[in-house]
């Protein structure tokens, strides 16, 4: 098990190989279908984004609401392939890593190589377990999208597997 503290950094990214088990700690941003559409529309118009993409880590997830007394509701990864058309563009804008589940397209693999970035797979369906690894959660953009809004999460020892590395290796 490799412990990773974010931001990832290019040297750390280069050292990771598909199939490596990791525990991720640090800041990640949730974004899924609707948020990606908005982010790309803002990029098209040249508008400033409500968060920095450079070296950020995007987690394809839409959490459940938190119960009283809890930091987060269940929050596992969603299917990454739905973000195939958005991911290369965000990676080219400096995104450092993606966390999701399931295989992504060849174009995403090429963008990972080009930008020395990494695609991590969380364990799909382990929403309650992931809620326990979230230390803080704050909605930072698009609150009208409800669970599809962008949340800034601080995570500690978030378990994942390197799905696609920056050398073209893939677990799938």
């Amino acid at each position, binding site marked *: 098990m490799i412990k990773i503290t974010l931001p990832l950094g290019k040297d750390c990214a280069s050292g990771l190989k598909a199939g490596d088990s990791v525990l991720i700690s640090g800041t990640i941003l949730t974004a899924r279908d609707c948020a990606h559409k908005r982010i790309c529309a803002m990029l098209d118009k040249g508008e400033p984004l409500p968060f920095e993409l450079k070296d950020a880590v995007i987690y394809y997830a839409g959490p459940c609401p938190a119960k009283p007394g809890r930091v987060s509701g269940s929050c596992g990864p969603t299917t990454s392939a739905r973000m195939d058309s958005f991911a290369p563009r965000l990676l080219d804008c400096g995104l450092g890593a993606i966390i999701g589940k*399931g295989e992504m397209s060849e174009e995403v693999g090429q963008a990972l190589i080009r930008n020395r970035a990494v695609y991590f797979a969380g364990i799909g369906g382990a929403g309650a377990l992931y809620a326990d690894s979230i230390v803080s959660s704050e909605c930072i953009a698009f609150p009208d999208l409800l669970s599809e809004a962008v949340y800034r999460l601080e995570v500690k020892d978030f378990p994942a597997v390197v799905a696609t590395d920056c050398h073209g290796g893939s677990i799938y």
Partner: protein
Amino acid sequence: MRKINTQAIEETVYALALKAGVNITPSCLNAMKSAYEKETGEACAFALKTLIDNSEIARNGQLPVCQDTGMAVVIAEIGQEVYLEGKPLSTAINNAVKRAYSDGYFRKSVCDPITRANTADNTPAVIHTEITEGDRIKLTFMPKGFGSENMSRLYMLKPAQGVEGIIDAITQTVKLAGSRPCPPVYVGAGIGGTFDSCAFLAKKALTRDIGEHNPRKEIEQIERLALERINALNIGCQGFHGATTALGVSCEWAPTHIAGLPVAVNIQCHCVRCEKEII
């Protein structure tokens, strides 16, 4: 004639929804445990163990087992000797869904298909009613996640393709889905009927316990052979390549037209959530 106030249906659906959101079925948990015991692939074993642990964390903390608490699918089998009184049945069921998804802190995942605006209370539910014998109502509540729903398919086969064609269609659906629907999956297949009724048969097949076979021998054989073929695909838990790609295959059948052989394949992820009650 037995009178049942739809308020009783609302309360039952509410309780079933709350329970379904945080629990996988016992047959699913058992199937996951046996998959873990026989898994030799390291990444798959790790993922299976994580998922078994997750189901326990969810149950103990009363947290949704998966954040995708699904679209609410309700099957109401209503005895024809029942007289329903009170608010309309659909209002009772949708009220139950609204209340359960709010009180359970479940995710609201239902939206307009064009604007994508969220309805904010997880309604409307998908309600199937069937008129049956007797004076009871059987209610089935299945929260259906869309990572797996998206990977479902419907085939209009030629009659000449026969049993081999049916098994190919089921296997091909799982193969094309690959790592995306959160394998190991539970596969429901409808065989026969029309385009629309075949898809419902596939959904209904998923309400059976994993491992409980269709009573008709030829159909049971299809379930067994399809499961063998799927598990030879080596997709494995989460697509990490391993022994168990599907936990089970369940088929329901109906007579069809002489010109056709519809086969619908509905994929369910490893979070099999399905609660039932008879009132």
